[in-house]
């Protein structure tokens, strides 16, 4: 097989014969990285370079065996006409620094650097007193480094303080437990029924009162053995649950999640209270619910297609219009993200797919997405789409997804 390394003069062709590969030809006025795009493995082809065009193109035709194909070379407009342009070089270096070069460009710069260095090696070095320079450099870095060390130590000290506090609490708790033991045994403690799902698991269950409850992955709810006697009280300890409440006029149905207490008579609603979220979100599909917040007097009423977000730390509330279907579709295995930060989305993915994730740069977690994925979409499909939309890349390694910015 012949390899043609033709260089172009006035004739605008590179021609290859059957079995030939055309590679590494420089087209006049074309950027140096073009040859890597020009790797053209078709046989019996005939390439033409349109010189006067801003965009160069290749096409293969002329041979009856093959249909006509036109390939556009993806050359940047302003870099083609004159590769001797200094702006192009500066641009190239800038892109190199930002990690936005093609592989070929990157290698080219590094090759130049190595060769340049080789040339310069013959030069004599005329720096005097390197030791003093080094000393000076150390003196200007040192304060910075000291500061960083101290920051590290301070957070360690804080941790120690917390540990001491926890120990004290533990001891006090023990004392309290032993001194109150007699009283505690006198009153029969409430017995709780625990319902829970593992990560990656969605369950539908029926409560003693006929209410249907769906538990999303990694959810814990509990109710006392007194449930449905006088009232119907339930605690959502974490995760997400969807309730289709059996209508009972005289027995309100109450769900406590964090600082919120949602009271209904007979409605369909959803509460999301995952540990990784800063709020508890209550959304209504049918009927109406009242939500009261610990430490606040008034209750808030929510209607269908409305959502109440309650800040876990400070109890601040925010009401917004939503499509309730977007927040309940998880029951059908649909992953729906409604203008959510990637850091929240990855948590949802972690719970659904029993996987871990991390970001190479914490800013990645702040990107927000709105998207929906069908049950038939695989984890890879979801990650691919998120990465395309956010100009990110990911890799899967030891059951962990690692996100990084596109290089």
């Amino acid at each position, binding site marked *: 097989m012949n390899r043609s390394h033709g260089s172009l003069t006035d004739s605008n062709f590179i021609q290859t014969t059957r079995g030939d590969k055309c590679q590494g030809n420089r087209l006049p006025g074309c950027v140096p990285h073009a040859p890597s795009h020009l790797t053209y493995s078709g046989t019996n082809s005939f390439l033409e370079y349109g010189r006067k065009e801003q965009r160069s193109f290749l096409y293969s035709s002329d041979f009856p065996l093959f249909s006509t194909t036109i390939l556009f070379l993806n050359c940047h407009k302003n870099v083609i006409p004159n590769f001797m342009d200094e702006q192009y070089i500066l641009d190239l270096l800038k892109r190199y*620094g930002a990690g936005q070069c093609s592989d070929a460009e990157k*290698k*080219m710069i*590094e090759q130049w650097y*190595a060769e340049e260095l080789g040339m310069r090696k013959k030069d004599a070095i005329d720096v005097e007193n390197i*030791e003093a320079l080094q000393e000076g450099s*150390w003196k200007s870095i040192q304060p910075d480094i000291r500061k960083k060390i101290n920051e590290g130590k301070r957070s360690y000290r804080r941790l120690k303080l917390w540990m001491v506090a926890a120990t004290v609490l533990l001891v006090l708790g023990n004392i309290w437990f032993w001194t109150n033991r007699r009283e505690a045994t006198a009153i029969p403690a409430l017995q709780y029924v625990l319902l829970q799902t593992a990560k990656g698991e969605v369950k539908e269950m029926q409560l003693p009162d006929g209410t249907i409850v769906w538990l999303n992955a990694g959810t814990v709810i509990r109710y006392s053995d007194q449930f449905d006697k006088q009232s119907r009280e339930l605690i959502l300890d974490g995760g997400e649950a969807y309730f289709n409440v059996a209508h009972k006029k005289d027995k309100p149905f109450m769900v406590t999640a964090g600082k919120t207490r949602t009271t209904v008579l007979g409605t369909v609603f959803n509460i999301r209270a995952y540990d990784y979220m800063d709020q508890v979100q209550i959304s209504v599909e049918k009927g109406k619910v009242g939500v009261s917040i610990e430490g606040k007097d008034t209750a808030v009423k929510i209607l269908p297609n409305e959502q109440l977000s309650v800040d876990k730390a400070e109890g601040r509330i925010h009401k917004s219009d939503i499509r309730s279907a977007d927040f309940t579709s998880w029951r059908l295995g649909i992953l729906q993200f409604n203008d959510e930060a990637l850091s929240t989305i990855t948590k949802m993915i972690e719970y659904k797919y029993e996987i871990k994730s991390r970001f190479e740069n914490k800013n990645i977690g702040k990107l927000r997405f709105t998207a929906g994925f069908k049950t038939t979409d695989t984890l890879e499909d979801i990650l691919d789409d998120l990465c395309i939309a956010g100009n990110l890349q990911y890799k899967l390694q030891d059951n962990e997804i690692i996100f990084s910015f596109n290089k």
Partner: protein
Amino acid sequence: MEKELSTLSDLALVELFKSQPEQVYKEIFDRYWGVLFLHAYRMLRNEADAKDAVQEVFISLWEKIENIRLHSSLSAYLYTSVRNRVLNLISKKNTYQSQLNTLQDFVSNTVHFPAYHGLQEKQLVEAIEQECRNLPPKMRRVFELSRKLNLSHKEIAEKLQISDKTVKKQVNNAIRLIKLKVSYSIYIFLLFPAGL
């Protein structure tokens, strides 16, 4: 303490970063500052810029050191970081016209041969490490000793015909043992204070 650190290979040194960050950092600084500076100076021919470039690399090293431990060798990280800073300076300042010109020539006169690939890194390492010849004797000794220590992992592996990784593991185990012993002696000291 510093005397002890200077007898450790880069790898062992980086392993110790968590337990004694300041000393390890200073040892790395002393080891590499000279060759990195001379390298940057050769490319830039400007003392202040070369010094700044190396300094920036060292400042960001503090944050990166944990990742280096996992992904690459210390020297490779430092060499390529300095190269990137140098290239950045060349692209930003108009005082580096001659460098830009040779890059331009290179770009317009070279046909891209894939066969060259992979050689650059090796060339870069060799070129930078050879700079130690131009260092004052004391600085030169520090650097050369560290290169010998770095070689030793590979040499041991070759002699014993085990993988390089196994050696690294053994070395790390040894370091852990030493640390354990040190902390034991602290406990013993605490249990039996002076006077007993």
